[in-house]
């Protein structure tokens, strides 16, 4: 059993701490610093976040996605065939992203996230899990002006991102997470999703983790068990129904137990986390549990995210101790 996070982390500290990243972005917008200067700020904040996650008791950390404009732009700006366009809302959040537009043949021209993974990995005392936005989610959050056919765009993205996953594994990532919240908003496209996953994970030599969030997988389970991954991450907060859904068939993978609400400041208790772990052991052995927040923590104030991680770690300790 491991404690982990889903990916993103608040970039801005709670006031009155100085928001270096925020100040950096504003200075860049005003032309007072260069991209390279901002990158150094991002380095510092990334190291701070890696240290913070480890300090709060997280065993498998991420780099907090401090460098990501959002989950879509970060990858599509590194791929052939995309331009980045106007603002769109990210699922049901009050967070906006610039919509990538496929204007040509999608292709992988070189590593996108590998340097950032390597930086994080060399500055972390804990194993770092790189996160990649999945081909299906990228496609549904993009606009297609080239293929005229969602299947083709998804499959082209899957082939391109397969090379990214291989490059991450080559760089030493022992576990790789792919995020596919988009699947839950477009459940009727599961056959396409399934085909994309085959291409995406082909020949990737690392532990393969697939995460969904912002909802439940009713209607997709047990079909999701056919996807060639080792860990399936589920949201048990927005998707509380997952507790019932998992009863429908024997769970054959490791389980990402998204149990701490990444979308609300209301604080969980260690007892509730321990209880959820116990409940989950009805489906998988404790050794196959990856306990974490329900989604990326970016939606929370920094101090609340820290306390939630503490509660998470305390809950897992309590589970191990067998206390109530």
């Amino acid at each position, binding site marked *: 059993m491991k404690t982990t996070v889903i990916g993103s982390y608040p970039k801005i500290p709670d006031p009155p701490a100085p928001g270096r990243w925020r100040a950096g972005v504003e200075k860049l917008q005003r032309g007072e610093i260069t991209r390279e200067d901002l990158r150094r700020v991002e380095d510092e904040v990334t190291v701070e976040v890696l240290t913070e996650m480890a300090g709060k008791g997280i065993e498998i950390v991420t780099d907090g996605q401090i460098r990501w404009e959002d989950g879509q732009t970060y990858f599509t700006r590194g791929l052939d065939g995309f331009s980045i366009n106007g603002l769109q809302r990210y699922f049901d959040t009050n967070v906006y992203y610039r919509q990538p537009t496929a204007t040509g043949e999608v292709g992988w021209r070189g590593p996108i996230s590998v340097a950032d993974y390597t930086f994080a990995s060399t500055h972390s005392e804990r194993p770092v899990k790189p996160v990649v936005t999945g081909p299906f989610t990228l496609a549904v959050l993009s606009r297609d002006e080239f293929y005229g056919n969602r299947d083709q765009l998804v499959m082209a993205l899957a082939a391109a991102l397969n090379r990214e996953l291989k490059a991450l594994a080559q760089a030493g990532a022992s576990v790789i997470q792919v995020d596919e919240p988009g699947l839950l908003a477009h459940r009727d496209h599961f056959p396409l999703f399934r085909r994309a996953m085959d291409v995406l994970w082909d020949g990737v030599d690392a532990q393969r983790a697939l995460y969904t969030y912002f909802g439940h997988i009713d209607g997709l389970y047990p079909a999701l068990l056919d996807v060639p991954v080792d860990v399936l991450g589920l949201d048990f907060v927005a998707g509380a129904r997952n507790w019932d859904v998992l009863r429908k068939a024997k769970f054959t993978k490791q389980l990402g137990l998204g149990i701490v609400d990444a979308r*609300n*400041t209301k604080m969980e208790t260690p007892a509730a986390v321990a209880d959820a772990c116990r409940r989950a052991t009805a489906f998988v052995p404790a050794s196959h549990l990856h306990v974490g927040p329900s989604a990326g923590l970016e939606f929370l104030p920094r101090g609340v995210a820290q306390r939630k991680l503490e509660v998470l770690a305390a809950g897992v300790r309590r589970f191990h101790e067998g206390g109530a």
Partner: protein
Amino acid sequence: MAQILLTTTVGSFPKPASLLEARRKHARKQLSAEELLTLERRATEDWIRRQEEIGLDILVDGEMYRGDMVANRYYPKPAVVRPVGRRAPITVEWWSYAQRLTPRPVKGMLTGPYTIAEWSFNEHYPTRRELVLELARAIHDEAVDLERAGARYIQIDEPAIHTRPDEDFDLAVEAMDIVTKGLSAYTISHICYGDVPRIYPAMLRLAVDQLDLALKNEDFALLDTFKSPRFTKDIGLGVLDAHSHRAETPDEVADGIRRTLKVIPLPQVFVTPDCGLKTRTTDETVAKLTAMVEGTRRVREELSR
């Protein structure tokens, strides 16, 4: 005959650099609240004058006193930790200040209950429904106070309304019923981004006179949606992309209005940008709005021939 194709804006305008700097200083406690207020008032007056000069019909105060998002992603998000209620009027003072500066009508600007609930953390209410309806009652009181102060136009923004259309669009409708009940002012709701076709025609059930929508952003593709069933409310027709640096041309604006008039009858059409313009520069904002007013004037002229 009443003026046709009245022009207005969605609410926010860019803050001058001096005000942004003052806000930073105030946050660092290097500038008093009174000094900040003086600058906010000066900036508000500047925007009232600019709107008059550009020739807009229904004005806004420009929201010089409100905060901004960082990188389109971050804002200080409120958390509901106890029962919500209104202690005193919130927006009436700014509205009155702005209205005293001009003979043209200034819109009262409120955020709708569904959006406030959706974009806040909720640590108190067991369900979103309870929070939304409680907020609706408070916002209704605010709208009544605006009307008593003299506001003839009241805008209640619901940009989050299509967040969970299947789950709780009815709740948003029920909440707006509470907000606008018994008002005699002309009411508007601004809805932006997201999947508008998915909440059409259900959105026509919202208890407001006008729905203010972003058309330009998708090059008026929404007009197809509004052909059938017919758009039965007034529309605030977004003809300027609020997030591009380029100023539209008057021809482009006029063309958008002409295309709309094939789908929505003339008396129902108001002309406006897609969204608040706070992320543009002052120059960009003035250039865009000038083109909007000029484009609208051309269509008015054609129609009067």
